């Protein structure tokens, strides 16, 4: 590790612990097979192939690897959901849709270290018994798709993919499948429908849990890019050593993507739970812009509930319970959940006091109104109504009671829909109202109470 030199100006922060991002921005590194194998690339696949598939799954279980795509579900446990009596083919899909606003990490793995992903996928496929796998990559990564296809071709030539890999008798084909610009394709069952050549309408769970009934109604494992890369490292150092990084139940490292109002936005791979929000913002990201104060943080992609500067949070249980400020929240799955939000996709959006809360919420609402797939009435209608109401607030055409309507619309979406997009779309509004109601109301006009507002007067400002 010590011999790794990074490009000037792109060196990792000393607080970082680079594992998956070891080769990102590295001097003298390139995405080729030669470069990858020159440092032990594909050795972990070779090693895995000497084990029993169940042994690999056990390692991943023991490591405690939690999914990095959004829900934080333990990968090994998910793999174990494939019915033991299954006789159908098993598929694995790498979720490279990377579309949660605020998230930008999979992009760099794909562009700079594609073989790491392919090796991680191959090991995972071996563990779950998949002979056919797809990388579902968002259409807006054309260069990434081409890089992955080249890497797959190289892996074939070297006998790391194809028939009888390294003489083990294990066969595997991986193909790249490009999406077409719809956020809902990141949701795993929507993704599967899309991969079947249809509109990406999410499926109802149960019964359509992918591990039991996924692609072509066969058991299918869907994992995020970063999750699958970790599998390779678990093989390399063993679950024991791997799980010593991070903290219990929140093991390993993860990449935090910071954007918005900080001096040095960017991607930072840290041990889970080893840095606090304050250390992330002030030390790693160089702090807020000069003269600015923190207003809010969205800690896990735009779907995560907002945290307000100045509020206090209770974390820990029993004797360990304590009250902390936003600055002291450890950046891990359990702590962020205890603070009423989530670690989600690792996308941290920082908002300072120069921003209008109404404007921020409206921008988010526009996203969800545009991306709802339209299957469920509460989501399809509700996401559009939320957008329309905040369009009005931003345009100064809303009345104070519109905020109550906004609140009620949001609370009638979550829990009433087919997929978690319902929560993703309503949580921003619910949490912004919970924490910034005064500011939202301040942007309304009491004189408009009961007045019918003509659509044309405010849609001019709508974010088309």
């Amino acid at each position, binding site marked *: 590790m010590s011999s790794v030199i990074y490009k000037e100006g792109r060196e990792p922060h000393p607080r970082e612990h680079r594992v998956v991002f070891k080769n990102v921005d590295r001097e003298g590194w390139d995405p080729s097979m030669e470069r990858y194998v020159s440092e032990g690339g594909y050795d972990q696949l070779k090693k895995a192939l000497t084990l029993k598939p169940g042994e690999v799954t056990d390692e991943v279980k023991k490591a405690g690897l939690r999914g990095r795509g959004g829900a934080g579900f333990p990968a090994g446990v998910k793999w174990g959901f494939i019915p033991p009596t299954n006789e159908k*083919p098993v598929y694995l899909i790498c979720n490279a849709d*990377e*579309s*949660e*606003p*605020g*998230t*930008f990490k*999979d*992009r760099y793995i794909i562009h700079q270290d594609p073989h790491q992903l392919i090796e991680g996928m191959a090991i995972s496929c071996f563990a779950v018994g998949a002979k*056919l796998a797809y990388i579902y990559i*968002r*259409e*807006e*990564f*054309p*260069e990434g798709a081409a890089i992955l296809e080249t890497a797959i071709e190289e892996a074939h030539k070297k006998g790391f993919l194809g028939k009888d890999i390294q003489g083990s008798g294990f066969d595997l084909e991986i*193909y790249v*499948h*490009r*999406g*077409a*610009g*719809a*956020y809902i394709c990141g949701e795993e069952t929507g993704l599967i429908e*899309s*991969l*079947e*050549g*249809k*509109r*990406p309408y999410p499926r109802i769970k149960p019964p359509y849990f992918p591990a039991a009934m996924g692609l*072509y109604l066969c058991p299918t494992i869907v994992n995020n890019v970063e999750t699958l890369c970790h599998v390779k490292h678990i093989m390399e150092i063993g679950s024991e050593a791997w799980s010593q990084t991070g903290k219990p139940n929140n093991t390993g490292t993860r990449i935090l*993507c*910071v*954007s*918005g*109002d900080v001096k040095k*936005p*960017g*991607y930072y791979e840290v041990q889970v739970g080893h840095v606090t929000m304050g250390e992330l913002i002030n030390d790693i990201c160089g702090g807020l812009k000069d003269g600015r104060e923190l207003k809010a943080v969205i800690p896990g992609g*735009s779907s995560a509930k907002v945290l307000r500067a100045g509020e206090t949070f209770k974390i820990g249980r029993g004797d360990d319970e304590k009250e902390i400020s936003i600055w002291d929240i450890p950046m891990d799955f359990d702590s962020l959940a205890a603070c009423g939000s989530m670690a989600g996709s690792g*996308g941290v*959006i920082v*908002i300072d006091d120069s*921003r209008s809360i109404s404007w*921020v919420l409206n*921008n*988010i609402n*526009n*996203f969800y109104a*545009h*991306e709802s797939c339209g299957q469920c009435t509460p989501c399809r209608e509700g996401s559009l109504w939320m957008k329309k109401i905040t369009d009005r607030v931003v345009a100064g055409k809303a009345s104070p009671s519109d905020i109550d309507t906004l609140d009620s619309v949001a609370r009638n979406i979550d829990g009433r829909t087919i997929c978690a997009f319902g929560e993703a779309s309503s949580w921003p509004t619910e949490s912004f109202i919970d924490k910034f109601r005064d500011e939202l109301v301040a942007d309304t006009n009491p004189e408009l109470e009961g007045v019918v507002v003509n659509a044309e007067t405010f849609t001019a400002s709508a*974010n*088309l």
Partner: protein
Amino acid sequence: MSFEVPTDLEKEIDERITHYPVSKRSAVLPVLHALQHHFGFLSEEAVEWTAAKLELEPIKVLEVVTFYPGFRQEAPGKYHIRVCRTLSCAMAGSYELMENICDKTGIDRSGVTHHNPIAVSPDGRFSIEFAECLASCGTGPVCLVEDDFHEAVSDVDSLLSQYP
């Protein structure tokens, strides 16, 4: 305009279809991508051609074309621009970027609607639309011009001059 798929392109498409040994229908997106890449947009003929190729009813292809924002049914400009409008980029000035590009190219977005999100410049050189988060939120404002990705865009003239 006659719709003819060149032999090379058809060969490429046939190869793509082999990536889906279980179901040919899975190849709808890749076939449409290949056709849109070549023709610039997806005409009725392209939809029918895809349906015939994959042995599907045309409606099964059309419903896909009309759902995904990445597919267009009308011709874009010579260079198609997608500007990210989502939160982090908006905070970094993506709405201003959109305005600047429209000013410099003479694009009028007043007729843009949810179903017709693309506006074309009078000379046909550029077309533009807003896109949702392009997964580069730390380097906003970002945009895609055709397949080229541009980060932290501030100088619109030098951006546009790369596309004659």
